[in-house]
C-alpha cells in the first residue's frame, strides 16, 4: 500500500486488522497533534500523553470517527483538545497502554512550550466550544460548512461560535504579551 493513501483509505485497512495502516495515519499526524496539545497543557510529558490518548481514542471510536476530504486530522485535533482538558481523567481508560510508553529522553523547556506564540497559547483560555471552531476554521482552514459537518452542528451554530471566539481571542491578544493572565498559562 502506498504511503499516499488518504486517511480514510488507510482506516479501512486498519479496520480489517492492518496495524501498519493505522501507524501510517499516526505517522502523518502525530507531530501536528503533539504541537496542538502543547498549546493546551503545561508540560511536554502531558502533551505526549494526549497524543497517545488521542490515537487510542481514535481506534476505540473507529466506527464513528469523521473525515474531512479524507483526512482524520480535524477529528484528531478536537479529540486532543477534549483529552487535554483533563489529562489524568482522559488517560484513565488507557492507563495500561500508556504505561508501556517509556519516559521521554528529552523534555521540552519552557521556551519551547510557547513556540507557537500567544495566539495558540490563547486557545487555552477559550471555552471548549470556541476552541473547537478556532481549531477547525482558523488553524486548519476548514470552511464553516466543513467544520459543521465534523462537529455535527448546523452551519449557523458554527458561524456564531466562530464570530464570538474571534472576539474572545481578540480580547485576549489585546493584552500585553506577558500579562499575568497569559503568563499563567505557561506555568507548570
Amino acid at each position: 500500500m502506498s504511503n499516499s493513501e488518504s486517511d480514510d483509505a488507510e482506516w479501512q485497512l486498519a479496520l480489517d486488522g492492518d496495524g501498519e495502516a493505522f501507524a501510517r495515519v499516526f505517522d502523518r499526524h502525530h507531530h501536528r497533534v503533539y504541537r496542538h496539545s502543547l498549546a493546551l497543557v503545561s508540560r511536554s510529558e502531558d502533551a505526549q500523553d494526549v497524543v497517545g490518548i488521542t490515537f487510542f481514542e481514535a481506534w476505540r471510536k473507529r466506527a464513528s470517527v469523521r473525515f474531512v476530504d479524507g483526512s482524520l486530522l480535524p477529528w484528531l485535533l478536537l479529540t486532543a483538545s477534549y483529552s487535554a482538558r483533563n489529562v489524568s481523567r482522559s488517560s484513565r481508560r488507557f492507563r495500561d497502554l500508556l504505561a508501556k510508553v517509556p519516559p521521554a529522553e528529552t523534555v521540552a523547556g519552557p521556551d519551547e512550550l510557547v513556540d507557537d506564540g500567544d495566539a495558540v497559547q490563547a486557545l487555552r483560555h477559550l471555552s471548549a466550544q470556541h476552541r473547537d471552531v478556532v481549531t477547525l476554521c482558523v488553524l486548519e482552514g476548514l470552511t464553516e460548512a466543513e467544520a459543521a459537518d465534523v462537529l455535527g452542528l448546523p452551519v449557523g451554530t458554527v458561524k456564531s461560535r466562530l464570530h464570538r471566539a474571534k472576539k474572545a481571542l481578540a480580547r485576549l491578544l489585546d493584552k500585553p504579551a506577558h500579562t499575568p493572565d497569559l503568563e499563567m498559562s505557561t506555568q507548570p
Partner: protein
Amino acid sequence: MISPDPTQSAALRRILIEHVEQTAPPGARVRHRGARSGLLTGLIAIPVAAAVAVTAVVMWPTSDSATAAEALRSAADVSITTSDPLVGPGQYLKVTTEAAYLAYESDADGQLSAYLSPSTTETYIPYESGQDWVQKVTAEPATEFYGEASRAAAQRDWEETVRGGVVRVARAADDDFAQSEELGGEIADVPLPDTPEQTLVFLHEGPYGDGTDDGALAYAAQLLREGTMPASQRSVLYRALALLPGIRITDGNAVLDGRTGIAFSLDADPGAREIIVDPTTGLFIGERTLTAIATGAVPAGTEQEYTAVSTTVVDQAP
C-alpha cells in the same frame, strides 16, 4: 519547532500497531464495558417539576450580590425538596436542549448583520447499562433576522445544513458520544463535592481552569445543561454560586423556552453569560447571553446564544 520525543513516538507507534492488530476482528463494532459508574445516580434521579407545590414567582427588584445569593440559596432549598423519580427498566431519560445562536454575516463594507439559528438536541439515556445512548440533533431554519443581508445568508447556510443533514442521529455505548461536547467527548461523569465551599473550588479548577469566577459560572452552566444532575447536587451547586462575590440578578422575570425564571450573572460584563433558574422548583431552565452593545444591525440586548434544557422519562428512543 518542537517535536515529540522520538523514542516515545516509536514506542507509541509500536503499541498502537499491536493494539489495532489484537483488537480488530474484521467488521467488529466497537462495544465496551459493563456497569455504568457514578453517573447512574444522576440518570435515575431526575427532577419533575409537577411533583413540587408551585408557589408564587418572587420578583427580585434589586441586583446586588446579597439579593442574588439569597435567591440562589432559596432555589437550593426548593431543589432539595424536589422529587427525583426513577427511570425504570426499559425506559430512557430524555434530555431535550433547545439552543439558538446568533450567526453573524459581514458584507463587503464590514457591516454586520445576523440571524438566529436554532437547533434541538435530544439525548436518550437508557436505564440499562450497556445499551446504546441515542442522540438526535435537529437543525431548524433561522427565526430572527437583523439586517438586510441576513436573510440571504440564512438561506445559503441553511442549504449547506440541508446538504449535511437536517436531522442527525448518533448512537453510542453508554455515554461515549461522538457528538457530545461535540466530538470526542462524553457527558461528564463528575460527582460534585459535598459542600458549597468545596464545590466552588472544584468549579474554579474545572476545564475552563483559569481560576476566574466567570470560568466557574461557565463550568456550572455546562454541568447544569447536561440535564442529568440530581436535585441534591444541584442544590449544592446553587449554594456554591451564591458564594461568588460578583453574582447578581440581571432579570427577575427572564423567559426562556416559554418558561420564566430568575437570570443570574456576574457583574463584570453586561454581555456576560446568564443562567436562568425557576425559583418555584429550583430547576435549571437554561442559559443565555445577550449582546452588550449594538453592533451593526444587531441591537443591544439581543439574545446571541441560549440553551434551554428539559428532562422527561420516555419508553422509547429513535
